[in-house]
């Protein structure tokens, strides 16, 4: 059986420029609770403890968002994302445990898993469910991917989740990578799509066909850059693949809520997202690229290409200004 993992209230917060409110969380979770989704992830787009000038200030603090979710999720698990370097155990993770979070996802750039050792070990030592997340998972070769995933599993993660943070994969890439992990690591494998190239849903289906058991998606694809794989579309596909799949109605109700509550934030595949996806650049940079390209009078296309060349990773938002400045002075 597939565990469907809903990132609308976390990745979607990127699209909403971190303006998510407890009221919206409450309303969304009330429907999610009835939907058959396995878990709902809540928080700042870059996870708990990440609200900052660098990647965006959140309108509502982590605690009030988590509390609003917790009050409305009983059967459905409450999850958070946390990135070492932004979130610390003391300041962010312990309060989240106290707020009743069920699943902790500790994420690092795909080559930097060792920075998560303490956090993953701490959580598994506290008998908390912890997943290891490999962000920008396209930015490493297959052998490297497997060895980083093994580290996560070794620290005590009960699942390793591949994030296609740049929306760079096509379905055959997902098949190769999910397969390799299924064979090499003894824990669950999850997959998190982004729709930069317009193949987010196909990628999620490819992950399912290759025996990934945790599948991320968001209502209306609300998420960074070109957005995630729309959860309702994944469910529709899955219903044609397997019997006993969740029914569609509550998923559509969640989509409808997102569609009506924040029409201005709905993501889509654009020429710019295809360029960033193909260049393998983190989707979350989109707002900064748009703003700084305009400020410095350079083209978004050139800026995306340069970011790809310099291999920026999530969290280096402040360098986009320097690069835009360099491009202007060329």
């Amino acid at each position: 059986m597939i565990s469907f993992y809903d990132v609308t209230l976390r990745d979607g917060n990127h699209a909403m420029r971190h303006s998510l409110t407890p009221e919206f969380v409450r309303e969304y979770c009330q429907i999610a609770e009835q939907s058959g989704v396995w878990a709902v992830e809540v928080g700042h787009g870059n996870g708990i403890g990440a609200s900052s000038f660098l990647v965006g200030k959140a309108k509502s603090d982590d605690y009030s968002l988590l509390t609003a979710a917790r009050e409305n999720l009983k059967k459905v698990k409450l999850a958070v994302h946390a990135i070492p370097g932004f979130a610390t155990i003391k300041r962010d993770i312990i309060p989240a445990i106290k707020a009743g979070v069920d699943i902790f996802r500790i994420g690092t750039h795909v080559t930097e898993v060792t920075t998560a050792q303490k956090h993953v070990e701490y959580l598994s030592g506290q008998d908390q469910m912890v997943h290891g997340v490999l962000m920008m998972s396209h930015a490493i070769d297959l052998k490297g991917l497997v060895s980083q995933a093994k580290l996560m599993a070794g620290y005590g993660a009960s699942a390793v989740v591949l994030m296609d943070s740049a929306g760079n994969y096509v379905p055959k890439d997902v098949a190769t990578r999910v397969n390799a992990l299924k064979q090499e690591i003894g824990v669950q494998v999850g997959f998190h799509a982004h729709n930069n190239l317009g193949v987010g849903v196909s990628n999620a289906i490819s992950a399912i066909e290759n025996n990934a058991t945790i599948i991320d998606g968001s209502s209306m694809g609300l998420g960074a850059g070109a957005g995630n794989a729309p959860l309702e579309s994944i469910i529709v596909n899955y219903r044609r693949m397997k019997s006993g799949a969740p029914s569609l109605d509550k998923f559509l109700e969640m989509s409808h809520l997102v569609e009506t509550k924040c029409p201005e934030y709905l993501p889509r595949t654009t020429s710019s997202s295809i360029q960033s996806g193909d260049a393998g650049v983190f989707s979350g940079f989109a707002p900064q690229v748009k703003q700084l390209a305009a400020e410095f009078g350079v083209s978004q296309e050139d800026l995306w290409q340069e970011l790809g060349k310099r291999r920026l990773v999530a969290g280096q938002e402040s360098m986009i200004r320097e690069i835009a400045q360099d491009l202007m002075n060329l």
Partner: protein
Amino acid sequence: MSNDKIKVAVIGTGNIGTDLCERLLKDPKFDVVAFVGRRSTSSGLTRMHGRVPNLLDSGIESLEPLWPYLDGVFDATSATAHAEHWAIVQKHKKWIIDLTPSRIGKPLVPVLIDNSPSMKISTDYVANYSMVTCGGQSSAALIYAITKHAKSVEEVEISSSIASLSAGPATRNNIDEYIDSTENMATLLTGCSAVKSILVLNPAEPPVMMRTTVHVRAANFDLVQILQESRDLVAKVKSYVPGYDLVVEPHVAGSGQISATVKVLGSGYYLPEYSGNLDIINAAAVETATQHVHLSRLNHERITT
């Protein structure tokens, strides 16, 4: 005033200790009396054969006969070992520069010694200075320059990105402690408790140079003064960290917000140039020792003449 060389020992023969030793050997103000490790075959000790008179391999105990010939020591070991080292150094009435994340010593960023009351050199000869973190060393000048010419500072944020290759196991394992120490320094410097520090590791090839961005929110600013003060202080840091540059000058980054970015290129004594994060800590350590000894010698002359 005494022009005697400053006689020191470096404890810890890893990357940081070795780079520090190279740096001190090239500095005419210093005399490296001993280089102290735990393994006689360590690459650090081997490298210093014929260059440092006492190459010792039994830790700080092996310094025992040399204390009368030392002014102070640099500790590039670990946070746990540092507590023990500090006790011994106090017994012998010497000073110690702490390059470990122990947070026992007084946080010090040399560029601000004459500026910030929180960064004064100790008047006691027996002293322990903590070199904070690379984020702390690289951001302090900007934090000081911006907040000095701002009214009602509401938030301070420091974000650094460093090359993955420059982040060893200690940095990776202590990333929470890194964040804590950097934030503590920012609070010490500004009195503001809403501080945030972020560290990002970048694996790109060729390795990226360290960058630190400081972001301050306050009721109002004098941008002209901030620009002048930042340029002056950056030039002052550059006198002991030659690869330190202001790459994005202070600018208004939203209402009530000022932001600026520096880049740190390492000097390449032993560590590669992309290790600006390690270079700035070592440069700060040498500068702190120089200033501490200078002040104590001045005071001593005042008393004795």
